[in-house]
């Protein structure tokens, strides 16, 4: 029965159904492109497919989402997509994770995927996924679309220690645009309307076909030695292929050493909390932490601050307005770098509210994933 199902694939000389059936692939983002990628991977018989999305289905998604129906509106995208592709091929293993991949995808799990397909709709998520993939040396395929163009980028991290990452060639304007959505560096501005980019099933299916083809090549063991980008004009069919060179000033990868050591630790800060022989050594946190705040008018004494120690991303710029005096006079302290000494002395008993800690020495990047 299973062989008969894939009989046509077996006639293709480059198609290794056995490798495809044992492959493990993750799809991050189950919107328009994610739907098409999931459908393609399932029909090809990819053995294990994990779907991640925090978002719920809206009625306007239905013009581009082959796996969604009108009665699915309001349900989680990953859950519905998983259920539908499981029906496409009951022989494959499908899991879904309804939430943010940053919280739900442990680094050791990321390492086990043949590749991760990035089908999200914003730069922040792409940069975070790029971090996970560069640190775990997991192959990454990024996709992007608009109403006319399709973009697919392959980052073959698994077999190449010196390869460009997603951020190596990212324009400065992307960072400027992201920064414009924050005030005081890391606090989200209160009312920011995201620009809506119109897309169609034409560009999303084209991106997914290309991305799936690249995923299949990685599964089949094709050696990619460089990161590459493919841009296709869906109206004319004209395409452009280019290579990415590693950028020595890349903020995503230039500090990462050739040797990366990944370990796990409890997030609880106790007196035994130690990750370096040197208590003064700096550790970087994967996410900025809002350490404390203080109204300089109501509490002029610098010691009178309110300690928070939570992810800065959970707060917005309203925090800078004092609830007592109503002035914009609140000083907020946000850090992404600490010493062991500082953590134990100031925050014992608290949990470090980030995905991982990062230490650098001359030879090695150490990543401590927190649980």
């Amino acid at each position, binding site marked *: 029965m299973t062989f008969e199902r894939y009989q046509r694939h077996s006639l293709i000389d480059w198609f290794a159904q056995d490798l495809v059936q044992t492959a493990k692939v993750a799809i991050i983002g189950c919107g328009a492109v994610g739907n098409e990628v999931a459908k393609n991977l399932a029909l090809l018989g990819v053995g294990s497919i994990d779907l991640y999305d925090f978002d719920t289905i809206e009625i306007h998604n239905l013009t581009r989402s082959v796996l969604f129906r009108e009665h699915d509106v309001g349900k989680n995208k990953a859950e519905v997509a998983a259920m539908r592709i499981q029906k496409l091929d009951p022989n494959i293993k499908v899991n879904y994770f309804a939430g943010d991949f940053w919280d739900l995808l442990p680094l050791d799990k990321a390492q086990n995927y043949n590749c991760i397909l990035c089908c999200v709709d914003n730069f922040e998520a792409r940069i975070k996924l790029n971090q996970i993939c560069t640190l775990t040396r997991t192959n990454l395929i990024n996709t992007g679309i608009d109403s006319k163009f399709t973009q697919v980028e392959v980052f073959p991290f698994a077999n190449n220690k010196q390869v460009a990452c997603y951020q190596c060639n990212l324009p400065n304007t992307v960072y400027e645009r992201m920064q414009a959505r924050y005030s005081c560096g890391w606090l989200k501005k209160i009312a920011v309307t995201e620009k809506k980019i119109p897309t169609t099933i034409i560009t999303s299916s084209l991106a997914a076909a290309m991305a799936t083809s690249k995923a299949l090549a990685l599964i089949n063991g094709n050696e990619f030695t460089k990161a590459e980008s493919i841009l296709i004009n869906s109206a004319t069919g004209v395409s452009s292929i*280019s290579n990415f060179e590693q950028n020595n000033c890349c903020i995503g990868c230039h500090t990462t050493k050739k040797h990366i050591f990944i370990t796990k630790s409890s997030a609880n800060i106790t007196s035994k909390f130690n990750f370096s022989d040197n208590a003064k050594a700096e550790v970087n946190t994967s996410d900025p932490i809002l350490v404390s705040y203080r109204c300089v008018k109501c509490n002029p004494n610098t010691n009178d601050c309110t300690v928070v120690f939570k992810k800065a991303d959970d707060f917005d710029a309203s925090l800078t307005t004092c609830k007592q005096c109503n002035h914009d006079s609140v000083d907020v302290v946000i850090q992404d770098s600490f010493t062991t000494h500082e953590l134990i002395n100031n925050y014992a008993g608290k949990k470090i509210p980030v995905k991982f800690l990062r230490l650098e020495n001359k030879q090695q990047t150490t990543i401590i994933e927190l649980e």
Partner: protein
Amino acid sequence: MSNINIIIRTADKTRKAELSIDLQQTGADIIQSAVENWSLPTDTDYSIVNTTSGTTIAPNASLKDSAVVDGNILEIQPVLVAG
């Protein structure tokens, strides 16, 4: 200052210019000039590809460092964000 002659165009090929350009200019400089001169949408981000060598030019790298030479064709491509 050393100049070279290049062709610059947009990915959809609706804009094209032949120009003499300083090798010290960066990829970001050229993108900015193209966006301004051709009134390209400012809510989109762009990268620049040397279509002759098939290599993307890093935003802060000079044309000289990116090994751009006389006669190369550079293409301004959108960096796509929707999914």
